[in-house]
């Protein structure tokens, strides 16, 4: 019976390794995730798209002002299904970083995303967004061209876009700049990605009145994938392996989710999306919100 014995031993060894790996993962601090999510050379949106489909065609411009290299967009196919991809683009090296403004979009980036999303809606293509940005660009031109208005429009239009939208936070999910391409039917995060209302540095200097307390701030802000899963803000966490393996995991989710979502009547899809967003927030003394929303849904139906 030595075989069984060996097998048991192997099993217990494997279990032990798993425990070590798991505990190592558990010990990873929020700040570790912040650093990993920002790491130079981390796989970006464009790389993931190209790892997932070999026929990606990039499209450019917002038709209003210009083309923002910090936002990449276009069409590709996965398993025969045409998909519109949109993603923040930080660039793979220093030269590209500068060219893409470190993934910080100007209004034209968000307006390009909006144009491509509407185009996807028109042709019944689902949309997949990859989020990886420190935030929208806080510069003169960005303000002059209405970065606030651009993000606001995206939030509104994506909320009722009549085609499935899947969002993946693959690195930094920085505030409104991330949310600008982050409203969809499903939201996933890579294991080491972060998502927050402000950077830990910003939080530390404004609320803790000490910029050096960013590490502490990262912990307090609860910005890791695990935190957000607990809050019910994201649907699931995706394990990070090699770029090719991670891309495969994401691809599997895209195929699985789109098989389900594309089969649903688009009206139901939009309603479910709005209902999900409507429910986020914690207050005391609030009232039941479902019935009024249902009534509004009925009303929009009669108007159609």
């Amino acid at each position, binding site marked *: 019976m030595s075989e069984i014995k060996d097998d048991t031993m192997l099993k217990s060894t494997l279990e032990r390794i798993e425990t070590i790996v798991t505990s190592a993962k558990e010990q990873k601090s929020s700040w570790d995730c912040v650093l990993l999510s920002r790491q130079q050379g981390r796989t970006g949106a464009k790389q993931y798209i190209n790892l997932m489909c070999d026929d990606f065609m990039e499209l450019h411009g917002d038709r209003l002002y210009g083309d923002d290299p910090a936002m990449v967009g276009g069409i590709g196919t996965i398993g025969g299904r045409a998909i519109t991809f949109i993603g923040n683009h930080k660039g793979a090296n220093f030269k590209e970083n500068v060219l893409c403004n470190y993934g910080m979009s100007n209004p034209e980036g968000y307006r390009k995303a909006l144009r491509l999303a509407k185009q996807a809606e028109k042709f019944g293509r689902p949309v997949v967004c990859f989020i990886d940005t420190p935030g929208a660009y806080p510069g003169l031109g960005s303000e002059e061209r209405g970065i606030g208005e651009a993000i606001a429009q995206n939030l509104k239009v994506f909320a009722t876009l009549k085609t499935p939208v899947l969002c993946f936070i693959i690195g930094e999910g920085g505030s409104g700049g991330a949310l600008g391409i982050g409203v969809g039917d499903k939201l996933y995060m890579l294991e080491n990605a972060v998502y*927050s209302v402000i950077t830990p540095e910003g939080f530390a200097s404004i609320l803790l009145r000490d910029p050096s307390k960013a590490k502490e701030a990262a912990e307090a802000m609860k910005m890791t994938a695990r935190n957000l899963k607990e809050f019910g803000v994201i649907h699931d966490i995706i394990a990070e392996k090699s770029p090719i393996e991670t891309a495969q995991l994401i691809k599997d989710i895209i195929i699985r989710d789109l098989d389900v979502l594309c089969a649903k009547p688009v009206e139901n899809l939009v309603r479910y999306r709005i209902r999900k967003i409507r429910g986020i927030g914690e207050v005391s003394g609030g009232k039941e919100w479902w019935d009024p929303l249902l009534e509004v849904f009925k009303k929009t139906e009669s108007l159609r």
Partner: protein
Amino acid sequence: MANKSSALCPQCQKEVELDSHKICPYCNFYFPLTPSERLSLIADEDSFVEMAVGMRSVNPIALAGYEDKLKENQKKSSLSDAVSIGKCRIEGQDVVVGIMSFSFMGGSMGSVVGEKITQAIIEGCLNGEPVILFTASGGARMQEGIFSLMQMAKTASAAALLEETRTPLFIVLTNPTTGGVTASFAMLGDVILAEPGAVIGFAGPRVIEGTIREKLPEGFQRSEFQLERGFVDMIVTRGKLRSTLSYLIKTHTRRIPNE
């Protein structure tokens, strides 16, 4: 009661006597108004009925010190949070209003502000009553972490429902309106009004100066600048506010074919 008060103008540093419009007679600085002062400028007398009176903020990410901060602000401002919503009449016309207060934690949008704005919008959708929102905010309430960011999506998706039910949304931007409020419902009005001289933008002036490493040009992000850039329909003085809103309400009656 005489509606006179004296105050120090933060803009020109002069001691000034203010009437109910609360505008500095020397430099035209618009002092912030409390919700009741605002209502007395625009609403028919005694027509306001507040909604969601009992709603209070909680501490969703269990951040140390947030509860104390809330209590302190409630005491200081005699408000329950940074927005008050309700229904009132303007020259006899029924509307839903929301009035933000910068004096409560910088008008920051947490779950309560997001929920109340959303409720106000839904209420408007249900009855086809115009929704009028007065904004004043430094942005998202960081103390509520990701929940504050999500309020942007929530209020904006509610605004999408206004679209579908053809209910008008009028925004009045007051000083200051920045951050997550600008990047959500504040920029989604059918008509966007602004009070003179209000700072309106996404990133705050100091953040931009930090990015570009130079001082901002005079008047950058003010109402007049935003009017010139096309993000505001018109600048309205407090004396013209009631009649302007009344005109807008009249001209935005829902006309739905086959209704």
